């Protein structure tokens, strides 16, 4: 195994084992030994998170473990990200993300946010319990490609419909993602959204699957 392969494997394992210190150490080694930081993110950290997704889907990991894996991933990402140089002609995507007003839960939102962070997007995280107008104002201000909203409970879901209508009226090109326990594909369609993740659990699966697709894309496997 080459030094690069060893480092990538160490990054991946540190994420799977939710070992934050190991992940930071492996990330620093990647920089010290000249591993392409984007490669380290994709084939180390993101690859580890993909394996976490498998463990989650097979009921070996549950949300507490996934949250700790995410913490480990961010330890590595914080070290690697400043060293990733973007091609100047490459378009940089952006997302406005938050939990809707009346919802003080943000676990699912944060896991989906992780996917955008790994992808290197500009992420505008509005937090939780976000007033409807704040979503609209921020989206129109930064003209993000995606607006992602989460509601963990049925009781807060209806606010999404209003935000979608307001944003789509002014910016019909913005893609809108919904997530949260009560959001089904039917609800997403009814509200006029472009995508959805069904629950905290599904946000985990969906977010991680998106990372998998991103990795394939980076490798040129899909266009």
């Amino acid at each position, binding site marked *: 195994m080459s030094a690069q392969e060893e480092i990538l494997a160490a990054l991946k394992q540190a994420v799977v084992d*939710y070992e934050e210190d190991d992940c930071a150490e492996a990330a620093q080694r990647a920089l010290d030994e000249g591993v392409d930081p984007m490669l380290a993110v994709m084939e180390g950290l993101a690859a580890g998170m993909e394996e976490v997704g498998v463990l989650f889907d097979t*009921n070996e990991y*549950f*949300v*507490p*473990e996934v*949250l*700790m894996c995410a*913490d480990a991933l961010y330890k590595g990402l914080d070290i690697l990200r400043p060293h990733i140089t973007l091609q100047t002609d490459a378009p940089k995507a952006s997302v406005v993300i938050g939990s809707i*007003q*009346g*919802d*003080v*839960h*943000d*676990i699912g939102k*944060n896991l989906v946010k992780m996917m955008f962070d790994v992808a290197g997007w500009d992420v505008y995280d509005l937090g939780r*319990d976000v*007033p409807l107008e704040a979503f609209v104002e921020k989206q129109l201000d930064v003209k993000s490609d995606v607006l992602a909203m989460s509601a963990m*409970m*049925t*009781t*807060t*879901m*209806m*606010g999404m419909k*209003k935000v979608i209508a307001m944003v789509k009226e002014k910016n019909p090109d913005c893609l809108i993602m919904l997530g949260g*326990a*009560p959001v*089904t594909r*039917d*609800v997403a369609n*009814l509200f006029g959204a472009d995508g959805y993740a069904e*629950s*905290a*659990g599904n946000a985990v699966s969906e977010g991680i699957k998106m990372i998998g697709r991103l990795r394939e894309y980076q490798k040129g496997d899909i266009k």
Partner: protein
Amino acid sequence: MSALTGKQRVQKLFKREPVDTMPCFSGQGAVVIQAIEKMGTKFAKIHTDARLLAESAITSARIFNMDAVVIPYDMAAVAEAMGRGISLYDGADGIIYPTVPNKWKNLDEIDIPKDYLSRGRLPMIDEAFKIIKQEAPDLGVGAWVLGPFTLAGQIMELDILLKGLKKQKEQIEIFLDQVTQVTVDMVKHYQTLDVDFISVRDMGSGTDLLSPRMWKTLVGPNLKKVFDAITCVPSVNHICGSTDMIIEMMHECGANALSVDQKNNVALTREKLGNDVLLFGNFDPYKTLTQLEDVKEVEAVIKQCIDNGLDAVWPGCDIWPDVKKENMEAYVRTVKEYGKKASPAVGRI
């Protein structure tokens, strides 16, 4: 023999005595917009005033011929009484449930006041129970409390709590013991108000979030302590989300009835637990009462619940208040007509 009142029907159900038909009631919030509009008030106002809280519960039950009421409607009352604040969203359009704005951010900050039962809205809720019992003696009256794990997630940041289950197991166990005592105090208090049933909702503890192993060690034992403390009122153990993997452990906690949501395979649960267990659930309230376009689809959902072996058809979660009138009517009508046949644990007169 004259028809039973709603209260009698609910009481008999919990005693597993024969009833004339299946009672239609819920342990989850069942306030509806039709009642709020009839009262000329707003959703945001009914959580802070005993008269409005009681009246909205009674009016909702009266409009749709439900057999019982349950209050309060939001999950924030105990956390608010502990000084965590309350967001009522009274300036927002439409329906937003109150939430807790200032959760404790780490275990060291936690300081549960000894007199929380007399703080915040808890005394007001007691007053609402008294009004309901005086003004609607024919209706069953239900109280509900959050289960210890979910209450813990209401008073401290949930991600800290979840990660703490792995990283700070001993400290989290001590914290959960403290919170369990709060829930025990609450159910003891509600028993003194002479309610007809108490539902303990540990809705954040399903296997969407926690492993069955964690549930067995950190949730089940604390729930058992709560149900052991409910000695003179029927009790319900409600968990929403995925419960198939923990349903036997839920049963071992000792409640008089179990309640599950639409993710549970009720037919299989009935097979696992046998016909003596009172089992409630399990329709998707938002889809069934707010979205479905045809009342025949509503009837089919409710009939399927009964055919799967439920003893009472409860919504899997709070009824979204903005129900379609005809869907709500179809729900109640179908329960009362199709529920004339005996359910697994309860016979018919």
